[in-house]
């Protein structure tokens, strides 16, 4: 986000500065979101593994972690719990993916404006 090159004569208005700030915010949020999406995907996979294991098990009851303890629970009860959790993470994941798409389009829009004005005096790319 730093200026480089021979753009010293260029006027940077408060509006330009706000656009640069906005781009910075979006970029930060984008990285945060990427991390969160990664975590959510992992959680989803874990839940998937858990429900698969549950199908394979011979036991009537399994230990399900709630809080800090492992509660003995009937398989079907655990199954519905896991399904519930899966649904929640999936929804959450969808919401985050949507936000990510909107962030990207907003960033592209700002890039167009800022590159249009500052040409190669500004660099908005990641390293």
């Amino acid at each position, binding site marked *: 986000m*730093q200026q480089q090159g021979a753009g010293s004569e260029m006027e940077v208005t408060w509006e330009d*500065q706000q656009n640069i700030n906005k781009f910075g915010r979006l970029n930060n949020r984008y990285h945060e979101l990427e991390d969160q999406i990664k975590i959510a995907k992992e959680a989803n996979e874990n839940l998937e593994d858990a429900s698969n294991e549950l199908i394979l098990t011979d036991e009537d009851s399994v230990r399900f972690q709630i809080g800090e*303890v492992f509660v003995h629970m009937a398989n079907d009860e655990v199954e519905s719990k896991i399904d519930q959790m899966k649904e929640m993470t999936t929804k959450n994941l969808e919401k985050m993916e949507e936000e990510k798409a909107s962030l990207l389009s907003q960033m592209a829009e700002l890039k167009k404006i800022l590159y249009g004005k500052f040409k190669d005096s500004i660099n908005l790319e990641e390293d």
Partner: protein
Amino acid sequence: MHIAGSTGEPFSNLINNVRSIRIMVCKSAIHPRFLTKDICRPLQQYKVVEMKLLAQQRELQAKIPDIEKCLDIVATLQAKKGTGEELLADFEVSEGIYSRARIEESDSVCLWLGANVMLEYTSDEASALLQKNLDNATASLEVLIADLEFLRDQVTITQVTIARVYNWDVHQRRSKQVTATVVKDS
């Protein structure tokens, strides 16, 4: 510069700095090389504050799932109430050592309030209290994120200002050099 940091004083102070620097750049009465030094100082201050806020953010982000876990187990205990069933649970006695507990139907749980105090609450009260804690933590996290965004805006403004002053200085020196060579050649 329209949003004020919720922590007040340090923020407004720093904003004024940015503002005054911008004015200084416009006037350019001071030699740019000293000016960049002047602008860099608030940048370092921003970084210090940012580190502090980030630490607070991490703390809150760890606290929220903890509270959610507490709510979860209280809800489980509440769900068992009235069914006459006992809750059979394996719990950690010490690190890596587990034992089995039979939790009889009960109307209350004890909450650790900190400062070596534990208080017994009915399940309803406990979950209300935990929910309140969760709401508070979520709200503080939101405020914190807004503060961080505000701070990062200040950092960006300062960085742009430094880049501009620096470029301006380079440009000035280059044009001086060009005039000097032209004079020498003639």
